[in-house]
Every structure is written in structure tokens, then in C-alpha cells.
């Protein structure tokens, strides 16, 4: 199988690899996939609570080159977007950008799921914090 240049570029120079502090109230962590399927993605986003803008993002992925490229790409795309805008990101856009073949479409789906999971985690933290009595 020949990989697209875009996938290879992300694989060789992945963007935003690493971790953000999990306990930071403004960090959302999404962990999706399963080792048995050969694909696990961890996506973390740091959000400015005043304007809901994603200021920073980090990822770590266990998976093939296309999975690594999909998650790397997604960290680039979410930075600077509001949470609402990030939720709009569709896996089909990832497929198009990276020229993913049909057998690798599931990698883009997982990346989209990772964004949603990270945002859901952030929301949960916000509502949990709001519910705390000072």
C-alpha cells in the first residue's frame, strides 16, 4: 500500500505530540479506540473559558501511519477554533486532506470521535465545577 505524501509528512513530523496536565480544569481529555483494534488515540485540548477558544492541543496515538496522521492533523485544526467550531469538524474532511484510502477511513472517524470525547470531558469538568459549592 502506498501512503500519501501528506500522511508520510505527518508521520515523520507529527505536530503537537505530548500531554497537557489532566487535572487542569480547562483541559479536556478524549481517549478513544481499543488496543484490540490496533487503534487508540488520546487527544487533549486546553480551552480559554472566557471565549471558548481552543488555545492548545496535544495528541498521542497507538495505530498505523494513517491514524497517527489523522490525529496529528486534528491537533493542528482545532487550535484557534472555538469549541463549537471544533465540533463541526467531519471525518470526511480529514479523509480528503490526507488522501486516505477506503480501508483507512476508520482512522479519520476515530480522530473525529477523539475531538468530541475531549470536548465532552471538558464540558463535564465545567458542569462539575459549577455544581461545586464554594
Amino acid at each position, binding site marked *: *500500500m502506498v*501512503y500519501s505524501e501528506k500522511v*508520510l509528512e505527518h*508521520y515523520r513530523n*507529527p505536530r503537537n*505530540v505530548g*500531554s497537557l496536565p489532566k487535572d487542569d480544569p480547562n483541559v479536556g481529555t478524549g*481517549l*478513544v*479506540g*481499543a*488496543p*484490540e*483494534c*490496533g*487503534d*487508540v*488515540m*488520546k487527544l487533549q485540548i486546553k480551552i480559554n473559558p472566557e471565549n471558548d477558544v481552543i488555545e492548545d492541543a496535544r495528541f*498521542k*496515538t*497507538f*495505530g*498505523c*501511519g494513517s*491514524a*497517527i496522521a489523522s490525529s496529528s492533523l486534528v491537533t493542528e485544526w482545532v487550535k484557534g477554533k472555538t469549541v463549537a467550531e471544533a465540533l463541526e469538524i467531519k471525518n470526511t474532511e480529514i479523509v480528503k486532506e490526507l488522501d486516505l484510502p477506503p*480501508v483507512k477511513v*476508520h482512522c479519520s472517524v476515530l480522530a473525529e470521535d477523539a475531538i468530541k*470525547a475531549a470536548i465532552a470531558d471538558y464540558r463535564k469538568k465545567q458542569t462539575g465545577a459549577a455544581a461545586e459549592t464554594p
Partner: protein
Amino acid sequence: MALKLPIYMDNHATTPVDPRVVEAMLPYFTVHFGNAASRNHSFGWEAEKAVENARAQIASLIGATPKEIIFTSGATESDNLAIKGVAEMYREKGDHIITMAIEHKAVLDTCKRLQKYGYRITYLPVNSEGLIDLDDLRRAITPRTILISIMYANNEIGVLQPIAEIGKLAKEYGVPFHSDATQAVGKIPFDVEQFNVDLVSLSAHKMYGPKGIGALYVRRRNPRVQLAPIIDGGGHERGMRSGTLNVPGIVGFGKACEIAAAEMASEGERLRRLRDKLRHGLQSQLDEVYVNGSLEHRLPHNLNMSFAYVEGESLLMGINDVALSSGSACTSATLEPSYVLKALGVGEDLAHTSIRFGLGRFNTEEEVDYVIARVTEVVKRLRELSPLYEMAKEGIALKKKM
């Protein structure tokens, strides 16, 4: 000597044709190009002579007589012929076949097809080393068993089944015994009398011969095994396999066997040493690296390892100047990893991290050193990218499904 990239270390998938084999084959394309079945002229006689010479070279490698070698298009066809041929011929006697879970698809899929025609198949399990249990085999035999088919060396993990003991057992119960010996012949000693085997599948392109040619050994004495052909038309190869013989391919196959017979012992030792160096090199520099299958009962040139927390395809992508293969099924339609590793009880997450190394005649020690360094480098880099490695370091167990 400068290292030549890319390095080929996937010799279980196929092997380069030895230049000596190519040289032997060439005249049979343009000079001695006759049809070996042409009885009436020298073109035919010369071709036939070359075929019979090759037949003897192949027979000699496995301790058989030339009349017992049938030429086919490869081991897949040989497997089909052996299993379907026996199934049809011995239908009156029984309808039960015993094979094992980690056979090549050429055997497994042939058995599945026979199941559709009403045959019963027993698939023996293997233990965590990749070996069958001889007691399981004994218990599985019934009065209606007409064939036992167990491969000698497995193509993914290189593990060797106890073929002499299986042959002895099969003979005790009078059940024909077929073995797909494609990965073993020409690499380690193989003798049809010592192993009590009745049918053996062989392939040229796994032993530095050309693709598109193989053979099936069919025992003629003690006892005589009979086969119904699966290809009709012309009655070539004693009626067992019709079709004009691939003379250049056969000549090449014969030459490859002759070379293997002469060089097998020393080559085996050299490759075993290189394989062990590869293993030690990797395991001494990386933690959590596991060998899949028995180390003791194994081809000298095979290594199949799991690199925890690093997915196989991404690892191969990083070592893009070395040709290897992976048990991860990222490229297949399903997300299922190797069925062979699954049968060993290797967890699916580890199965996705497996890499198969197949050393061969043309690999050098320098290449092995390079591969050790590259694999180590890429595994370390990908572990930094891996959430599973991070969690393992933090002592967190990952829940099954997110």
C-alpha cells in the same frame, strides 16, 4: 562493503532467485524450449531429460524417488491436490480430515470447501508455543479419518511441529499423512522415510527458485497413496496433474534444490547465528519485546516479535528501508490481526504490534546490525507517541473499550 538499501528481510514471503538458478534456467527459454511431452523430436527429448534431471534433484533433497514427485504451479496447488485428491479418492473409506488451527490458508480454505461438500474437519488447537498436542491428535483419529494434514514449519512464526512423531502416529492408525513443508524444505533436513510422511507440498520460490513452480511428493511404497487429480486434460504427471510442464521453472527448481542440499547445513548455522544476534540486539536495547512461538522448535532464520505499545504497520512505515511484514491487519478489510498469533493466545493488542523477520541467503551481518539499530530507534520514537506506553509507565490499565 557498503550497505545496499532497501534491505530485504522478508524471506518467508518470497526469496530472490539465486543467480546460479537463473543461469541454469535461461537456455530452456530460447534454446531447449521444447515441450517435454513432445515424443517425436530432439526438442522434446531434451526438455524431458532436463525435467527428469530436476525431478531427481528434488526427490534427493527429501529422500524420495523421482517417480514420487509431481510438478504443480506451487505449494498452494500442491495443498489443494493433496487434500482434495485424497478426499475424493478415499470417499468410500471415510469423510473425516484432521488439520490444525495455524495452517496456511491454502490448507484451511481447502478444508473449508470440503466441509461444504459434507466432509468433517477437526482443527487441532496449538499451545502458547505454537505446537499441537500429540494426545489431541491421537484422540481425534476415528475409523473414518482419511487424512491428517499438519505443516512442518509455520510461515508466520517459524515454529516446527513434531513431524516424525505425527508420522509415526499416522502410520500406526493407517491414516495418510500430508505435510505442507514449503518453509522447511531446503532450510532444514527433511526425509520422507524418517518422518513417515505420505504427501509433501513444496514450493520453489521460498528456496531461491522461481515463482510459479512447486511439487507434491506422493508416496508409492509402504503404502502407495492414490490421488484423484484436480486438473484434467492430457494426463501428464502420471495422470495426477495435467498441463504442459513449466520446463524452465522445473529446471530452476531442481537447481535450487541441488544448491540447498549442498549449502543447507552451513547456511542454516550462519542464519541461526544472525537470527540470534538480531533477537539479542533488540531485547537488550528495548524492554517489553516478546518472541511469538517456541524458540527451541523453530526455523533457524525466523523471528517473530511483538513490540508492546507500538502498532506494527506504523513501525514498518518508520523502518521503510527494510522489507519486513507485520501481524497487524491494518491493511485488511477487517480489523482482525493474525489468526496464527490469535491461536497462540497472543492478546490482540500485542498481535497488532508484531513484526516478522525472515533472514535469508543474501542477508549479511552488517544488514542485521543496521536493522537492530533502525528498529530500536523507531520503536523508541513511536513509544513516545503512544498513549499506551504512557499509561503503562504510569501504571494505568487501559479499559477494554472506550
